[in-house]
């Protein structure tokens, strides 16, 4: 773990060397997320509500998902761009170092400029929370933190899965974007608006529903079942198959070397 943070610190240092490019990227990532927020706002201007959810409630979901996604993108970017690592043969080097291969892969890259996106999504979340009537309690604060961690864990798992697939093939990775990018889009809206099969997939297989829809029901007092608050915990189960596939991937890499 120490190695991970030290590497990341060094990568940040490297990025700050190119100051102008860095500032532009930060502004860019802020701006892109701003346009996305504006798009959601436009839809609510036209329609007022989706199901029985209003703009600020959806904005909360949006802000949260984008926050978690950007955090994952920032910290686990090496996994997101793992295809390059395999293609360039850099993974060989990872294997000849006496550290965990997953952690080393994680810190192959670090995109500090995503801080712009994080800032924008935190801003959206704050505005949303200020405008939604939530009766805060200590438990609800914990639920809020738990759902964010759970959501980051899901994105992390997807990135691990995506990286693992690179051991078999580097084309067809677009498919994995359905899970990460698609999951991000799906989870922007309360999942009860989708068709049933869609809902089941994003609750029980890729469990985005568990980290935002259900806990948010409880957070907003739409449903006072306290159990919904701890549902995000189950999202961590998704990590297990992903890590197993990663392990299998390394085995495969060892026998083919490509």
């Amino acid at each position, binding site marked *: 773990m120490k190695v991970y943070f030290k590497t990341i610190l060094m990568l940040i240092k490297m990025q700050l060397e190119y100051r102008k490019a860095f500032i532009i990227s930060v502004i860019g990532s802020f701006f892109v997320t701003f346009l996305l927020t504006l798009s959601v706002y436009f839809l609510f201007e036209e329609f007022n509500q989706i199901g029985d959810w209003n703009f600020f409630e959806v904005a909360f979901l949006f802000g949260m998902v984008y926050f978690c996604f950007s955090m994952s993108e920032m910290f686990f970017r090496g996994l997101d761009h793992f295809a390059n690592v395999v293609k360039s043969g850099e993974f060989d080097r990872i294997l000849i170092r006496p550290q965990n291969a997953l952690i080393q892969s994680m810190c192959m890259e670090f995109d500090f400029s995503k801080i712009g996106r994080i800032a924008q999504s935190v801003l959206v979340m704050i505005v949303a929370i200020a405008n939604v009537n939530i009766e805060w309690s200590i438990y609800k604060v914990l639920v809020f933190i738990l759902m964010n961690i759970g959501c980051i864990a899901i994105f992390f798992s997807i990135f691990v899965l995506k990286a693992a697939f690179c051991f078999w093939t580097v084309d067809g990775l677009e*498919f994995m974007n359905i899970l990460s990018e698609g999951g991000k889009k799906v989870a922007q809206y309360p999942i009860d608006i989708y068709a049933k099969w869609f809902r089941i997939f994003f609750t029980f297989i890729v469990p985005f529903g568990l980290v935002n829809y259900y806990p948010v029901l409880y957070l907003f007092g739409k449903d006072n079942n306290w159990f919904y608050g701890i549902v995000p915990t189950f999202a961590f189960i998704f990590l297990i198959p992903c890590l197993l596939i990663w392990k299998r991937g390394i085995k495969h890499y060892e026998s083919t070397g490509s």
Partner: protein
Amino acid sequence: MKKYLSFFKLRLNIALQYRTSAVAGMFTQFFWAIMQILIFQAFYKVVTSDNISLPQLISYVWLKQAFYAIISASPDSEIKSMIENGNISYELCKPTNIYWMWFFKTLANKVSGGFLKSIPILIVAPFLPYGLSLQAPAGILEFILFLISLAFAICLMAAILNVFYISIFYTMTSKGTYSIFYAAMEFLGGTFVPIALMPDFWQSLCYMLPFSLAADLPFRIYSGSIGVVDAGIFIVMQIVWLAVLTIGGTIITNRRLKKVVIQGG
């Protein structure tokens, strides 16, 4: 003509080699379209938009997804890297007009690559269950206008991208700044939110700019959410923009090239 056919065949051959990638790309397209449709269905359950009906919007979503590779603002990777790594100076030595060379190269790559990607949707989407399916065009006239405006839209997008090439050629900064422009173009082209669902002020703003004329207009004409008369006016605007961008572009490139010659690079 034979040259173009063999070029197309080569593209198809390459595409077929990347089997997984082709299947994955198809899946992704369908997923995006269906997800957007599900979201719009949810919105329309309570209120209906005055500008565009749900079936019209669904057709719009499918078509936009089908032709996305053609009308998206992603630059030609070959040209872009050529400008960035300076290999463009070799191109300048060739006795061809660089503006039109860029223009047709972008056009050819986009059309040949994008056309392949549109086939699966165009075959499958009309036969999906009602409420998800791509509808027939609003009428024969609309369909003809759709084809015309699509053709102009593709050219318009190539012209817009040429402006981009020229600007990075001038300033030599692209990496960070382009992502900002790209997002703005996508937004103004109705990719984040269909322009028909934007507030009135934004709608009129977007339709004055070329981005929506390239990336949004044809599909609205197809679905019938723009009247035939308005469609005609917008097509004229497409032509005007196309003329402005190409004429302006050629003048600027020629001037720039003269400078290169005078200064010796």
